[in-house]
Structures are given as C-alpha cells and as structure tokens.
C-alpha cells in the first residue's frame, strides 16, 4: 500500500512536470530529501528515480524554459570550481574505490545547486522550492516529533521512517537540518502565497517548528541543541519585540526543561566535559590527526581519506562521592578509520586547503549576500517586495545553523545544504533581475543641496 502510494505520488509529480516543467525541479528536490526509494520496497527501488527526475528537470529547462536574462553569479562560479576541484582530487584519492563511491552522489548535489538558480526565475518558484523543502523535511520530522513525545527517543534509538542511518535519516544531521527549516517554515506561514498565511498555515507551521525542536531531544544529538541556541540568537536580531521574544524563550525553557528526559540532559551535559565522553573525545582526536595530515597533504587525500587515520586518547571520568572525594577513572582508547565528524575537517582532510577555502568562500559569500539583500529590503521595501528581507533573513539563519552545526557533523556535501545554497543564489539572481528591470530615467536629476534650494525659493519670493 505504502509502496503504491509513493509510486503514484512520484509519477503524479513527474506527470505534472509535463505541464509545467519547473515541477520536475521540485520533484527532484523532493526525491533527494525524502528518498522514497528507501522508504518503499517495490517498484521505486528498482528504477533510478532520482536520475530520471534530474534528467527531466534538465531536459525541461533546456527545451521549454525562458533563458533570457540568465547570468552566472560569482557564487555559482565558486561552486563550479569546487566541483572541478573535487573531481580532480577523486582521481588522485588515497582510497580510489571509496572516493569514487562518494563522488557518485557529491557531483549530483553540486550540479543541482549550480542548476537551481537558473530555474528560479519567479517569486512563486522560489516559494515553491522553499515549501517543497519544508514539507519534504516534514515527512521525516513530523513522525520523529510524535515519536519523541510518546517515547522520549534516545541516542541512536529514534527510528525515523526508515532504519537507515544515512543522509537526512541520521540523527545529528536531521537535528541540524530541522533547525534550519524552522525560519523557512515561519517565512512561509507569514509570506506564503501558495497556502495563504491564515490560521491553518500558521498552525501547521507551528506544528512543524515544534517537531523540528523535538528532533534534538528525540535523537539526543548535541549538534541540534547548539543549532537551536544559534537560531534563537539569530532570531533575536530580526525580531521586532525583543523583550517579549526573550520572555517567551525563557518561559518556554522553564516549562520544557523539567519535561525533558533525564538521558537527554545527561548527554547534553557532556558538551561541557568532552573528556568524559568517548564520542566527543574521538572527534577532538580525529581533528588533531586531520591538521597533521593536511601538513603533509595540503591538497587533501580525496574523499574518505579518514579511513587511514589511527587515533588514541584517554577518557577521564570522575565520580563525585561528596566531601571532596572523587574516583577518577581513566581509559586509554585506540581507534582506526574514524570519520571527521565535522564538515570543516572533512573539507580539510579530503580536499586540502584549496577545497576548504572554496567551501568557506561559498558559504561566507552566502551569508554576506543575504545580509546585503536583507538590509536593502528591510526598511520601506518597494510595493510587493515585503517578502524579500524576511526570506533573506530566514535563509541566512538556516545557513548559520548549517555552518555551526557542521562543526560537529560531517555534512560538507549534504545535498540539502546545497539546495539552500541554490535557493540563496536563486533569490539573489531574482533580485538582480528585478533591479535591472526597474525603469531608470535617462537623465537622472541631481540632488539639490538644501542651501541652494532655500536660495532659489527666496529669489522666487523676491
């Protein structure tokens, strides 16, 4: 039944694309996020549905889309450079087979991010992609939220639709991504045109946001909690009634903390004392190894270069019995082939300093670009453009969540994050087209200084 449902939905989505080719783009985004081929077990698992959707999107764009006024932005150029560079490092990778396996999905994410801005020609398209991303992540987080409410979840215990600890179905990744989705859902609830911003849209957005906030609790991923704090601070910057916002946050925290499962608070406590926690200690050890590795391999070791690492460290656990009595327990741990657990070190180890620089440039340009748009349209926006500054703000917040969250999770090439990049480039290109299309007078009047104006007025009176 479920299999039939997913098959019918995908076919209907692709069928709608025959009438409006842009829907192929949305179909690919949906398939990339939800991965219906993983959720179902029949027909969809036997066909390359993702490849079919992408081919349709590309073909639809080439054949039926208006390509006038399209410009490749500097950010897309950086993305292209990153794509080429990653392709080159794959050819000389330390682990050619594993590197080729990762490259097989990385290039698709990068090419799609390059392609997305070319298709986002209208405001409705930008909104439609945002809505598709939010609803697709909703497929994962709504269930995750309900399960957390009913059972409390647990580290590595929360089962999200499929029992597959990869992609967005991995606890830490979905926790970080869920935080990034919150500002986008709020934007849709306030400025959407596909679903009018009435009480129903706001209620659903509130539900999605609550589910997203429950993800760090359910998965007990520390990354999610850190992202939630970052998001709260970022939202403080853009909220109008700051004192009310702080009050609501404090009240919410006071109500929520006693209700949180004790396993969650214990795990979050290890953020302060990483030496007691093996997972956190492994990360620090792998990061140190990566810095040393980059000294001898400045151009990186190619994808999956972490497989050659070997790290050892001591975990220190103190059991306090009161009255200055504490039992210190030290364990020496040796591990091999541990993943980076950080997008920054993932880039450094796999792509070296040039790759890390390109990746940082790509994302920092995004933060800057969104800030420019936000400031330009924040005060007195032209009629019909009141949605621009809030969207730029939401995209910036989502990206900051990603940039902070990716410090602790290896999501440098997570396709969802490149969709965010594509969306930002699309918004920026759209604003550029609108500005270019605005009528500019052939002869612009010079601003008349106030003194001269006063003088002219006096002469007229006399």
């Amino acid at each position: 039944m479920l299999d039939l449902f997913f098959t019918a939905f995908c076919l209907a989505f692709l069928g709608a694309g025959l009438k409006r080719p842009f829907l192929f783009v949305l179909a690919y985004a949906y398939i990339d996020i939800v991965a219906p081929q993983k959720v179902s077990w029949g027909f969809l698992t036997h066909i390359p549905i993702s490849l079919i959707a992408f081919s349709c999107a590309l073909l639809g764009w080439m054949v039926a889309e208006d390509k006038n006024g399209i410009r490749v932005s500097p950010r897309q150029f950086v993305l292209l450079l990153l794509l080429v560079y990653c392709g080159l490092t794959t050819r000389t990778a330390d682990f050619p087979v594993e590197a080729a396996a990762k490259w097989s999905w990385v290039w698709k994410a990068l090419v799609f991010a390059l392609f997305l801005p070319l298709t986002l020609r209208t405001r409705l398209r930008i909104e439609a992609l945002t809505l598709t991303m939010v609803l697709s992540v909703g497929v994962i987080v709504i269930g995750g939220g309900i399960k957390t409410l009913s059972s409390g979840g647990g580290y590595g215990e929360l089962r999200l639709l499929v029992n597959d600890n990869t992609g967005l179905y991995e606890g830490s990744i979905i926790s970080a991504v869920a935080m990034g989705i919150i500002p986008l859902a709020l934007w849709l609830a306030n400025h959407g045109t596909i679903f009018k911003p009435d009480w129903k849209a706001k209620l659903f957005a509130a539900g999605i946001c609550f589910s997203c906030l429950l993800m760090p609790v359910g998965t007990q991923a520390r990354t999610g909690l850190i992202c939630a704090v970052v998001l709260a601070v970022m939202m403080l910057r853009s909220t109008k009634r700051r004192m009310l916002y702080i009050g609501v946050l404090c009240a919410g925290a006071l109500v929520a903390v006693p209700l949180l499962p004790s396993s969650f608070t214990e795990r979050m406590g290890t953020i302060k004392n990483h030496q007691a926690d093996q997972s956190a200690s492994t990360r620090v050890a792998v990061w140190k190894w990566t810095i040393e590795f980059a000294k001898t391999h400045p151009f990186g070791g190619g994808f999956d270069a972490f497989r050659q690492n070997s790290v050892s460290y001591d975990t220190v656990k103190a059991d306090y019995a009161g009255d200055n009595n504490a039992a210190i327990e030290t364990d020496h741990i040796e591990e091999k082939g541990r993943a980076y657990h950080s997008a920054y070190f993932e880039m450094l180890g796999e792509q070296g300093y040039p790759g890390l620089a390109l990746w940082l440039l790509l994302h920092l340009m995004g933060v800057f670009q969104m800030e420019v748009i936000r400031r330009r349209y924040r005060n007195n926006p032209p009629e019909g453009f009141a949605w621009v500054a809030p969207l730029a703000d939401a995209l910036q917040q989502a990206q900051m969540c990603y940039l902070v969250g990716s410090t602790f999770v290896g999501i440098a090439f997570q396709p969802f994050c490149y969709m965010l990049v594509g969306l930002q480039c699309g918004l920026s290109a759209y604003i550029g087209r609108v500005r270019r299309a605005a009528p500019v007078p052939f002869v612009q009047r010079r601003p008349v200084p106030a003194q001269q104006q006063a003088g002219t007025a006096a002469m007229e009176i006399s």
Partner: protein
Amino acid sequence: MIDKITIFVPHILMALMIWKLVHRPDLDDDPALPNRRQPLLGHRATRFEADDRRPDA
C-alpha cells in the same frame, strides 16, 4: 500509525501545492518582471493590424 501520519500529511499538502502551481500563471511569468511573451505577441498583433490597414488589404 505514526509513520502513516508523517507520510500522508505532508504528501497531501505537497499534492495540493502541485495542483495549485499547475494553475498559477505566475509560476513562469513573474508580474514584477517584464513579460517576455507579451511584447512578441503584441508586436505580431500590431503587424497584423498594420496589414489590415493597408489599402490593398
């Protein structure tokens, strides 16, 4: 049951979204941008009108 809710609710909304998008003209032509199809049609219409106005027509 939870899995069914998490699958059906967003999918129904996505189906609604697709239905609405198929019927929205501003999906392809943004009202804030100059319509690239209009001038072409307009130009053609003017030419036909001009043909009609010719004395030999």
